[in-house]
């Protein structure tokens, strides 16, 4: 029986080089290796085009290629008879293959040699199973579908966004043994992604940022395509990406307002999956491991399904907070006011980038910084502590980008940064679309001038 192309995906992981045979106009065959065979769909593969060489010359001449691939488990050989269709030089498929090629190049010490010029797309005319293959003995591994089902069930129980984000990352660990994960939300105004939740790192990194197009996370977001890398690769390390992007940004965003990215310094495997609704980017789910080739095509499939569900739920929960629930009763557990005592906390606000410093330590900037400043000023003026998402949305001074702006995610970011850096100021959810500001030390507010 002819196997489906999808069932051969493990052959395309790059563990064993794939050999490609073509034929010149003069009838002379050519045989060499192709860096990357990429599964596009059940009837198409894409091959990496890096140099104009004999293979490419032949393919452009008569369109035919035969690729022999090997499964990395039992070394089963398969031949794909291909017909060339077209070359893509930009877009999701191209970026995906470019990231993978960078990983292969880095792994094989050929970073300077390998550069993707194009993704050559072929129709798979026929698959031949080389006779005499040994039976595959795939090592036992966790069942992805049952893990997915359990993760989705955990997520469905979440009544608010903060819980949803944490439940998702906890589920990845308990159901799939994915121990290092991050969730980043997209800020369309500043074209960057900011971390709202993380799991498995020494420091949470909440509030750290990645520019669109930078590193594996930024490219996955920009192209709205999952990117999976099975080897350590310098170019796509987000630490590197973060350093580069901050180096490029303006003087107001130099190191003092940079929150270091968490993350493994020596990630062997990385997978970034965009959270999208239609064509709208909400954020990125990122997982990594010190182990090389940790994530397979199947893992990618499962995480894409998970990310789809997560995006839907983020949207639902965010919309729900626009219509606040009934005012909570005074007997609510969180209604006990903290006692204000101790030394005063100096809070300085820089209006030009909405950055907030607490006792000269950077806390937050941007929309979340503007929100924090508004809350603190209102509290100072009137002693007010109860607020709603809705009034923030309607406050023109905050300049929230538009209704698709994920205000709830900003509040989670602010809440978590405060918890980490300034516990004297705390935000507590008091109901859907409602929260309370708890201040436990005297505050000295100062609006600073830039420069």
């Amino acid at each position: 029986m002819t196997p489906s192309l999808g069932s051969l995906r493990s052959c395309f992981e790059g563990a064993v080089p794939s050999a490609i045979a073509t034929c010149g106009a003069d009838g002379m065959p050519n045989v060499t290796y192709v860096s990357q065979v990429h599964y596009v769909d059940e009837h198409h593969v894409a091959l990496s085009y890096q140099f104009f060489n004999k293979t490419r010359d032949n393919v452009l001449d008569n369109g035919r290629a035969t690729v022999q691939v090997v499964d990395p488990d039992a070394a089963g050989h398969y031949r794909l008879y291909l017909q060339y269709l077209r070359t893509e030089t930009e877009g999701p498929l191209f970026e995906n293959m470019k990231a993978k090629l960078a990983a292969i190049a880095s792994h094989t010490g050929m970073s300077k040699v390998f550069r993707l010029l194009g993704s050559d797309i072929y129709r798979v005319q026929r698959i031949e199973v080389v006779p005499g293959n040994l039976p595959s003995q795939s090592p036992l591994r966790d069942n992805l579908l049952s893990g997915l089902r359990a993760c989705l069930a955990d997520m469905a129980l979440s009544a608010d966004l903060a819980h949803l984000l944490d439940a998702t990352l906890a589920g990845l660990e308990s159901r799939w043994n994915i121990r290092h994960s991050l969730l980043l939300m997209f800020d369309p105004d500043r074209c960057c992604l900011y971390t709202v939740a993380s799991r498995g790192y020494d420091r949470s990194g909440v509030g750290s940022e990645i520019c669109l197009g930078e590193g594996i996370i930024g490219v996955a977001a920009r192209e709205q395509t999952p990117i999976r890398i099975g080897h350590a690769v310098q170019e796509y390390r987000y630490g590197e990406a973060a350093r580069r992007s901050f180096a490029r940004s303006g003087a107001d965003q130099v190191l003092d307002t940079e929150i270091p990215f968490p993350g493994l310094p020596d990630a062997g495997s990385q997978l970034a999956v965009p959270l999208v609704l239609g064509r709208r980017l909400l954020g990125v789910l990122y997982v990594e491991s010190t182990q090389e080739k940790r994530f397979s095509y199947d893992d990618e499939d499962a995480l894409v399904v998970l990310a789809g569900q997560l995006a839907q739920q983020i949207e639902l929960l965010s919309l729900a907070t626009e219509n606040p629930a009934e005012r909570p009763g005074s007997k609510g557990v969180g209604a006990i006011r903290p006692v204000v005592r101790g030394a005063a906390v100096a809070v300085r606000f820089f209006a030009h980038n909405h950055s907030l410093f607490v006792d000269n330590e950077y806390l937050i900037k941007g929309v979340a910084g503007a929100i924090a400043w508004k809350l603190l000023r209102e509290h100072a003026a009137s002693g007010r502590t109860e607020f709603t998402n809705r009034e923030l949305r309607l406050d023109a001074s905050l300049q929230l980008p538009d209704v698709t702006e994920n205000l709830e995610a900003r509040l989670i970011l602010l809440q978590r940064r405060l918890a980490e850096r300034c516990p004297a100021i705390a935000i507590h959810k008091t109901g859907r679309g409602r929260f309370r500001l708890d201040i436990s030390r005297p505050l000295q507010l100062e609006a600073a001038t830039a420069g």
Partner: protein
Amino acid sequence: MTAILTDPPLLDTSRAAFLLEPVAINVASHDAGFTPSIARAHGCRISADRRQVTLFLSVLRSRVLLRDLRAGAPIAAVFARPINHRSMQLKAPVAEIVPLSPGDEQLMAAYAEAFAAELSGLGDGENFSRAMVMAVGDEAVAVTFTPTRMFEQTPGPAAGQPLESGT
């Protein structure tokens, strides 16, 4: 392109020695409609004058390629060392398919052992390494050709450059 016997052989001693290292060998040809055929070889032997290269192929696993070669189509073979990616391609306008000679099975066994050791040294599992060089045994045939063209094939911009004898 016909090799004249007084010309030096295309393969100098160092290149001939490379073909005998633990290299992956993939062989290609094509049918009348120019559809390429491809198969893996399980070792090789080089004539004393270095003019002839003989590859060992499984009949079972190389059916289409052997059919094309038998029909008189040209041959190409790429030799690639997994540990350093050094690669070279040989081509010839014709190849002859003949039974194994005495000693060929021993050459195939030695090749299998060396190639499996190379893969294991790169971190491939024992089962995988062994499966890659699975016993071909007495059903193998010898494919003999006189290379007339030789190309650098090590990945990089120089890949595909023709190599001359003695260069």
